[in-house]
């Protein structure tokens, strides 16, 4: 079991706010890791640190056996890391296909334009945006933009994929579809970290879960262990006795 990504004692502060303290975990290749926690817990900040947008004050990040602490986002992309954003960032004036080609051209495979176009077509089918290939990205609705965001990341054929709330705003059947998509991505051999609030989904597809609260790692383990962890329950519900009562009534 090779460890694809390893975080060791990662901390990040913004002025007076300690956004992350001492986050530590290993991510084996091929695993789906769920990252949960209340709003403001630092989940997206952690993604930003892993992805190179922020540099941690303390700690180390090891990706594919290389110490990448402090590496810039484009360096990590060239090593095979890709991510989606919670608030989508389409390249508005470019077509959907061109958006995806950027992912293929500048990812670790460094494709030329014509190969990138072929890869883009494949990925377009995979995420179901085939008919919209020539539309301007800015004209898509939010759900389609989220799929575009994912397609861009997939086109780079990454080793590690960071998904930031891909289920937000989707209805039940859309969520089920997306879960199937994520599982198919894992089947292609891509390791995934997912930030999510939709608990049903998380519990279903995560192999392991890390829980953040106020920047600290309060729990780590498989889904069952997490659901029964009193610290987690308190962080989400605020009152452990309330949790007991709810469990009794259920």
């Amino acid at each position, binding site marked *: 079991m090779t460890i694809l990504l390893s975080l060791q004692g990662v901390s990040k502060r913004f002025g007076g706010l300690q956004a992350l303290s001492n986050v530590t975990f290993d991510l084996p290749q091929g695993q789906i890791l769920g990252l949960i926690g209340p709003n403001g817990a630092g989940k997206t900040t952690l993604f930003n640190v892993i992805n190179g947008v922020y540099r941690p004050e303390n700690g180390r990040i090891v990706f594919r056996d290389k110490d990448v602490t402090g590496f810039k986002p484009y360096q990590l*992309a060239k090593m095979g890391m890709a991510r989606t954003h919670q608030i989508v960032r389409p390249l*508005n004036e470019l077509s959907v296909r061109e958006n995806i080609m*950027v992912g293929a051209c500048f990812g670790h495979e460094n494709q030329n334009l014509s190969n990138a176009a072929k890869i883009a077509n494949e990925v377009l089918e995979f995420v179901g945006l085939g008919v919209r290939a020539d539309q301007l990205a800015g004209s898509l609705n939010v759900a389609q933009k989220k799929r575009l965001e994912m397609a861009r990341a997939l086109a780079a054929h990454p080793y590690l994929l960071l998904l930031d709330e891909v289920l937000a705003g989707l209805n039940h059947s859309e969520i089920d579809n997306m879960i199937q998509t994520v599982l198919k991505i894992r089947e292609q051999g891509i390791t995934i970290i997912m930030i999510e609030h939709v608990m049903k989904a998380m519990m279903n597809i995560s192999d392991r879960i890390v829980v953040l609260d106020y920047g600290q790692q309060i729990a780590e383990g498989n889904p069952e262990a997490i659901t029964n962890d009193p610290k987690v329950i308190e962080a989400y519900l605020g009152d452990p006795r309330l949790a007991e009562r709810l469990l009794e009534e259920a």
Partner: protein
Amino acid sequence: MKTWQRYSGIILPILAVAALAIWPTITGKAVNRESVFTILKAVALASSLNILLGYTGYVSFGHIVFYGFGGYVGLYLLTEQQWTLWNAILAGGFASGVLAFLLGTAILRLRGAYFALATIGINEAMKAFINNFELFGGPTGITLNFSVYKPYGGAAQALQTSFYIAAGLALLAILLSHFVRTSKFGLGLLAIRENEDAAEVMGVYAPKAKTWAYVLSAIIPGMVGVLFFFKNGNVEPHDAFPLHASIELLVMVMLGGQGTVLGPILGAFAYQGMRGFLVTSDFFKDIQLSVSGALLLIIVLFIPAGAIGWLRHQLPTLRRVLA
């Protein structure tokens, strides 16, 4: 993609420049040649600026500094060091490229309005510096001795030659613009323009890409500067770095449509044509700047994508041709 489809975006621009270049030869009038010369100069400058502004999304208000600096370097080599015109032009372009490389490394870190202000500051600093620089003639500048025109068949013939070189530079500019636009490098620039942070996350090495865009956008203006000062016979600091001209370049790019190959050509043609009309008309002569200003305001308020940009939005099928 089939070959003709791939190159369709370059056909219209080449035809446009060719038509411009041929027209004075057909009419045979020197005054037409001179007005087309101005247009060709504008096409070359605007297309080059477009690489930075239209493709990469960085607004330079002081782009004329490369025209002035390269022009000064080339003219100095021409007069003081007896270089040939061709070599001087190449040297001017090279000098501007180097300047852009050094500056870019420093100021491309700035975003938006801060970058624009920095480019203004650089233009003014360069103008003031050259004003003090004795090697380049200080405030009086450099004046060409008429004997310099002898190898080119005398002054009158030199004007004709200059015209052809201008056409060549304009053609070079649009070819460069096209090749950048349709290359992988260009795709990276467009990504930077749309969302620089997202582009970096996807692997675009933004600092290097921006610097090279800056360099590419500076070379041809440097060459044009040498040519223009050669034709003019002299150069002085305030002629070489006119801030107003710099902003007029912006107007041309925006008018025609930034981010396209055809746009700057159309914009240069329309703007210069309008200026020419205003300057010769008795009524508008004094207020031509006001009319240009009003036009710019209307464009900015109502058609921000420029003429070609607007057309591309309305007619998606023509997008590949109106590249």
